[in-house]
């Protein structure tokens, strides 16, 4: 694809949507409804400068740590749980139990157990972002190709080697689907984690704006979140293309539509 076409794909729909939004919000006087131009200005004045270093960067740091552990734990636990039936039976109800608990009630509990600090916020991020990776890994492990599995067994490829050379690569497409989900969920939980026991951070700031009726600023914060999400997605895609090049090669043979 030519770079020009690539750019057109990248910005095409967003531009259409922004124009639509501009048209729709043109006559609006509602305090809570943002307008594109005003929002763009606010975005600039609000987030460029000190706030970027004091609020955005630390948040991103916690997000990175949280995602790292969520993905790592998700894969490791997923491999274990997916390939060990008794473990799955033992843990599944418990995990489902925790999965259903809303972060706003989980946070106080984590605060109690961990404290009011970065670890707690990272824990909140992990507590939500782990699920897509974990579930996808478990399901992927359960669905590995039976002939490949037999091949491994017959060549005595077992234990760690089996995981490394067979299960992990086989499950990677599904893990990647999970990671992709986890990125945005992690971002959402980064915000939620800063709504409690906090005094700085991107999420904290957005909530402050919302509470203090700084509505354009609040929307600009949401845009920042969206942009970060987009950035993560781009990084992700780059990594995925590398990790899964065999998979895309395999699938692309006939993918013409």
């Amino acid at each position, binding site marked *: 694809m030519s770079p020009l076409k690539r750019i057109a794909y990248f910005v095409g729909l967003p531009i259409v949507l922004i124009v639509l939004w501009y048209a729709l919000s043109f006559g609006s006087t509602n305090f809570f409804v943002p307008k594109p131009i005003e929002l763009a200005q606010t975005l600039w004045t609000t987030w460029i400068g000190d706030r970027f270093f004091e609020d955005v960067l630390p948040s991103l740091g916690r997000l990175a740590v949280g995602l790292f552990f969520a993905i790592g734990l998700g894969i490791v636990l997923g491999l274990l749980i997916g390939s060990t039936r008794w473990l799955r039976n033992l843990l599944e109800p418990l995990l489902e139990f925790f999965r259903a608990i809303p972060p706003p009630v989980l946070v*106080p509990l984590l605060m*109690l157990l961990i404290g009011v600090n970065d670890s707690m916020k990272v824990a909140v991020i992990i507590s939500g972002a782990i699920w897509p990776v974990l579930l996808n890994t478990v399901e992927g492990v359960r669905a590995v190709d039976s002939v490949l599995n037999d091949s491994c067994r017959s060549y005595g490829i077992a234990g760690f080697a089996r995981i490394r050379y067979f299960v992990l690569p086989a499950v990677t497409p599904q893990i990647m689907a999970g990671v992709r989900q986890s990125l945005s969920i992690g971002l959402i939980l980064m915000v939620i984690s800063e709504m409690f026991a906090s005094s700085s951070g991107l999420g904290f700031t957005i909530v402050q704006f919302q*509470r203090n009726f700084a509505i354009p600023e609040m929307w600009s914060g949401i845009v920042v979140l969206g942009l970060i999400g987009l950035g993560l997605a781009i990084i992700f895609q780059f990594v995925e293309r590398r990790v899964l090049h065999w998979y895309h090669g395999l699938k692309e043979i006939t993918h013409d539509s």
Partner: protein
Amino acid sequence: DTTAPAGSDALTPVTVGVIPIADTAPLYLGLDQGFFEDEGLDLTIETATGGAAIVPAVVSGDYQFGFSNLVSLMVANDKGLPLKVVNSAVASTGDVTSDFGAVIVKGDSPVETLADLDGKTVSGNSLNNIVDTVMRASIDRLGGDSSSISFVEVPFPDASAAVENGQVDAAFVVEPFVTAAIESGQRVISYGYADFDVNLDVAAYFSSAATVDGDPELVTKFQAAMKKSLEYAQANPDAVRAIIATYTKTPPEVLAKIVLPKFPTEFNVDAVTALGEAALKYGVVETAPDVSTFLP
């Protein structure tokens, strides 16, 4: 039910969004006592955990009135949000040794007064709002340095635990958590609101400019009913405790012990003015509200 019989006795429906805490007991009492019906109002009370849901609902006209703390309303005013304060709601007790909001520390904490908090971590339920504003003002008044303190947000229900576990050095809490904290051996170092001003208006009922300008009659009726409700509540603390039990989950034995706020019918203009100035001083608002137009 919208097809109420036509005529002078048809009630005007009115919805008020509140937070289900002791502060809003008069509204529930007023409904119970028929004060609103007397004014021709068919009152519905909607609850939410905070302004995030109440303010947009009032702005959109979904609710006609809402309940909010005063500093939030000052901020809204500062930001040009078309809200109008219509009625007083709740104030400190007028007693600096017993109030419904307090700064608590651990039982064995070396902190004795607000002035000892320099360099420490203190929590409030929401920053850049009334709680940290009154604390900062009192600290600086007592010779401390409020700018040396790091404030963090911890919701009231979790604050006592944060103090106990040493995650914060002091916390601002309101009832029923003040009573619970004291009972568990924690100490009050300041009744925050009362320390700012013994008769500090803490919250108010508000409406949107559209409603105030478009339906002044409704506002008048609401104010009249509210006045009766507040007076009744102030005069009947047992009725207040009884009604709180119906809409909160505070255990009855705790409820019997909590300190009730005062339910004034008029604003303490001086205190509100001071609060506005403090909010300006600590950067919560960019311009202090003009009290003469800010208050009804």
